[in-house]
């Protein structure tokens, strides 16, 4: 059903009862009036018939046809009478008048009867005429009781009555009633419309008002309030809605203010947090850079010291010193990696690489640490190739194996690569029989500086950066790292790499250390380092390897060495040099001076991403401070060869 608006409903509510009651009343009145008319019509007919009957009694008694005919004609003067017939007791027609076509049968019947002609518009009455009874209270009548005196029938009158007048009056009544009813309904409709308008308009206004409030257009609501008149039927309601709107507006304003305040506070907090994070990153970068120089020098000095002959006690002290320096350097490497990852200065260079080459380097780097703890390090050989950044993957593996060695007191550390061609994956797993990680800590261990059982911060156990670097590096390379561990039993970390077919021509990529290289003894090396302490430490280490070292604080001194006839076979330069020069430019200049492409490497304490790129473009190896002497030696051998 179509939904009616409020005005239509009000009109309907006003009109329906009116129409219903009016119609019922009109019908009842009409029926009543029709009934009255019908009754009056019938009564009048009977009366006319009785009068004619009475009047015709003597005519019938005396057989006076003239009188009867006059009577019949006279009866026609009565309204509705259309036909009159008078017959005597023997059925002889004595008189008749009127329209013959409206005449019923005039057979003599001893009893009165009435009916309607087939055309339904003419009623007839047939009535016998008796002699009048006169009471004779005399003794002769009593004496004649034995003689039955029959009431004699003199004859019969028959009259036809037309319903025309009756029907006309009924029709008039019906038309009149209908007209009055229609007028009443129209009047009611007009009144209902008039009254409903006075209610529906305010309701429409309220609806509009609520709609505006819903849309939050409080200014428009305020303007409507000015138009409100106290004579309005719903003035009070509208006034309250306006009050409500005011309250709502105030509440909204308050809310907006609070939100703005909170947003501002949040922004402030965010900025503070970002500032703090930036400060942390800066601190890390700065700290790692500033720490790197002396640590680099320290490592080199200790390495040089170890090269010298000592007694047994001193040698033990130097071993301890080397271990401490190594721990310090590892810590700095971790901080460096984290700071580089945070600074987003690490860019992945994906390419196919041999997993076996990584494993070889890993064996070189870790076997000493494992052996020193009496652990069996087993690295299963593999022929698999993977597609990723070999350097970063190596860092992940190095961190994982270092962790395994660090947290395993006895037993073994196993590194294995499993090929899953169906999934085109290589899974590299690092197993250990160490202390294990409780399930509740297995997620947290990937956070920075998180260590499960190192509340005392024993630095020999690292700083808790290893797994954090693993996670960040893996995320950078979009690799999957899974950790499975049982407390007290051991841990297995799985690194899943994309597998590729082995290419025909294998390239060294400079990562493997297959080429042991030539001996360094007697090799001329030019060290360019602006920091005197570091330069001296580096020179002493190189000299320990029987190399001929020329030291320069910058390009100028280096050229002086060349001018004095020193021909370097390899150049080691710091990146940042004095007076704003850098190592790349210096090496390029020296190569240009000597007109030979002298092997050279860069050593830097910076973590800026462009540095790596510059070194690669210049075809230089880049070593991050602090440089482990073994690594430096390995690089120099390769360069010299």
């Amino acid at each position, binding site marked *: 059903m179509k939904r009616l608006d409020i005005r239509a409903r009000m009109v309907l509510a006003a009109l329906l009862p009116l129409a219903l009651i009016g119609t019922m009343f009109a019908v009842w009145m009409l029926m009543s009036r029709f009934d009255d008319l019908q009754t009056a019509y019938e009564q009048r007919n009977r009366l006319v018939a009785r009068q004619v009957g009475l009047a015709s*009694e*003597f005519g019938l*008694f*005396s*057989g006076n046809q003239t009188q009867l005919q006059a009577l019949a004609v006279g009866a026609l003067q009565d309204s509705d009478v259309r036909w009159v017939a008078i017959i005597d007791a023997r059925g002889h027609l004595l008189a008749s008048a009127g329209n013959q076509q409206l005449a019923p049968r005039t057979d003599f019947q001893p009893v009165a009867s009435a009916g309607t002609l087939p055309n339904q518009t003419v009623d007839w009455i047939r009535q016998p005429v*008796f*002699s*009048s*009874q*006169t*009471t*004779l*209270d*005399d*003794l*002769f*009548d*009593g*004496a*004649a*009781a*034995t*003689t039955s*005196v*029959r*009431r*004699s029938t003199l004859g019969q009158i028959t009259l036809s009555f037309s319903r025309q007048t009756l029907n006309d009056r009924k029709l008039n009544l019906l038309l009149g009633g209908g007209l009055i009813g229609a007028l009443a309904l129209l009047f009611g409709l007009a009144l209902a419309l008039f009254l409903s308008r006075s209610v529906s308009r305010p309701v429409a206004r309220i609806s509009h008002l609520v709609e505006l409030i819903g849309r939050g257009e409080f200014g428009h609501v305020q303007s409507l309030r000015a138009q409100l008149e106290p004579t309005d039927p719903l003035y009070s309601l509208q006034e309250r809605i306006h009050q409500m709107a005011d309250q709502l507006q105030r509440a909204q304003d308050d809310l907006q203010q609070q939100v703005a305040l909170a947003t501002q506070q949040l922004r402030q907090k965010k900025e503070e947090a970002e500032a703090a994070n930036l400060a942390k990153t800066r601190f890390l970068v700065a700290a790692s850079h500033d720490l790197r120089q002396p640590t680099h020098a320290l490592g080199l000095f200790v390495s040089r010291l170890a090269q010298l002959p000592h007694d047994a006690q001193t040698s033990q002290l130097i071993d301890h010193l080397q271990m401490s320096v190594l721990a310090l350097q590892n810590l700095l490497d971790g901080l460096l990696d984290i700071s580089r990852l945070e600074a987003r200065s690490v860019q992945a260079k994906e390419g196919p690489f041999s997993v076996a080459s990584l494993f070889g380097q890993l064996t070189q780097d870790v076997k000493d640490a494992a052996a020193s703890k009496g652990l069996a390090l087993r690295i299963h050989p593999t022929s698999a190739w993977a597609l990723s950044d070999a350097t970063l993957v190596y860092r992940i593996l190095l961190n994982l194996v270092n962790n395994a060695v660090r947290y395993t007191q006895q037993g073994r550390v196993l590194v294995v690569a499993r090929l899953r061609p169906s999934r085109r994956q290589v899974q590299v797993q690092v197993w250990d029989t160490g202390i294990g990680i409780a399930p509740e800590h297995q997620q947290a261990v990937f956070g920075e500086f998180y260590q499960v059982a190192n509340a005392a911060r024993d630095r020999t156990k690292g700083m808790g950066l290893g797994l954090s670097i693993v996670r960040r590096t893996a995320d950078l390379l979009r690799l999957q790292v899974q950790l499975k561990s049982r407390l007290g039993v051991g841990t297995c970390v799985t690194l899943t790499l994309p597998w590729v077919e082995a290419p025909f021509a294998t390239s060294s990529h400079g990562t493997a250390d297959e080429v042991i290289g030539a001996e360094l003894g007697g090799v001329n090396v030019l060290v360019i380092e602006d920091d005197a302490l570091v330069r001296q430490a580096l020179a002493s280490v190189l000299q320990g390897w029987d190399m001929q070292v020329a030291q320069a604080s910058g390009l100028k001194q280096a050229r002086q060495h060349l001018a004095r006839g020193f021909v370097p076979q390899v150049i080691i330069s710091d990146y940042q040099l004095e007076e704003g020069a850098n190592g790349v430019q210096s090496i390029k200049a020296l190569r240009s001076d000597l007109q030979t492409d002298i092997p050279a490497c860069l050593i830097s304490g910076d973590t800026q991403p462009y540095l790596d790129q510059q070194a690669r473009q210049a075809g230089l190896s880049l070593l991050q401070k602090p440089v482990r002497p073994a690594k430096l030696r390995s690089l120099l051998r390769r360069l010299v060869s």
Partner: protein
Amino acid sequence: MLRWLRHLCTGCCLGLALAVAAQPTPTQVVIVSSEASASYTQVNTVLIDALTRAGVPKAAVVLLSPSELAQRTKEGQLGLTRVFVAVGARATQAVLAADPSAPVLSTLIPRQSFAQLLQSSGRKTSARLSALYLDQPLRRQISLIQLALPQARQVGVLLGADSVGKLPELSALAQDRGMTLQHAKVNGEQPLFQALSVALDGSDVLLALADSNVFNSTSIQNILLSSFRARIPMVAFSSAYTRAGAVLSLYSSPVQMGVQTADLVLGAWRSGRVPERSVEPDDFLVDVNANVARALGLALDGAALRLALRRLESRP
């Protein structure tokens, strides 16, 4: 009020009769009344009063209804009755049915009714069975016409089955008085109006005779209307007809009948005989419908006419 009095009187009479029956005095007069209507009650009362005044012991007079009479007869309680008085036709019929040994006087009975009862019972009028007729003698009626309407020369008469026997006497009487009789016979097959038209044709007066075949409650209205329209006065035989529209009526009142009956009963009581021939009423009344008389242009005085008639009959 009248009805109450009537019931009271009837009650008294019945009480008296019971008292008489209860006493050892032998019942000597038994009055049997056809009904307890006003006229009959009046006749009975006047009769009993007159008998009592004449010395008949009250206890010796018993008033019975026809059914009570049959009961008493069956029980044999009426053996010592000296006179039976039957008031009305039904009572006469009941008394004749009881076949009493004592003389019977029937009173307040139309002549024709008594004749029919005699005929049906196979009896004749005698010193043991006689009647006082309700009908006025024809002579008196003709005399009244002559007195009241001296111009009347032709008398119209409607004759029915019960009255056709009076035609010869009536014709003779009219002829004696210098009048002619215009009579018409009414039978059941012919419309009454035809006979009435004949009777009224040329008549100066319409004489109504007691015949229920002609004059009855249903016909009287139209007969009176016809005569009135013909401006012919009607002389009837009962005061009811005067009230209905007849100009004159000649009749005997219940009191007059009671008094005359009492005389006849006393005679029988004393002599043990009733008149051998039936008797006609001595006294009478003449009623005039003044309205109709005035409408017909007649000036009539009922009392004067009665006196004139009585003088004519040499009565005081």
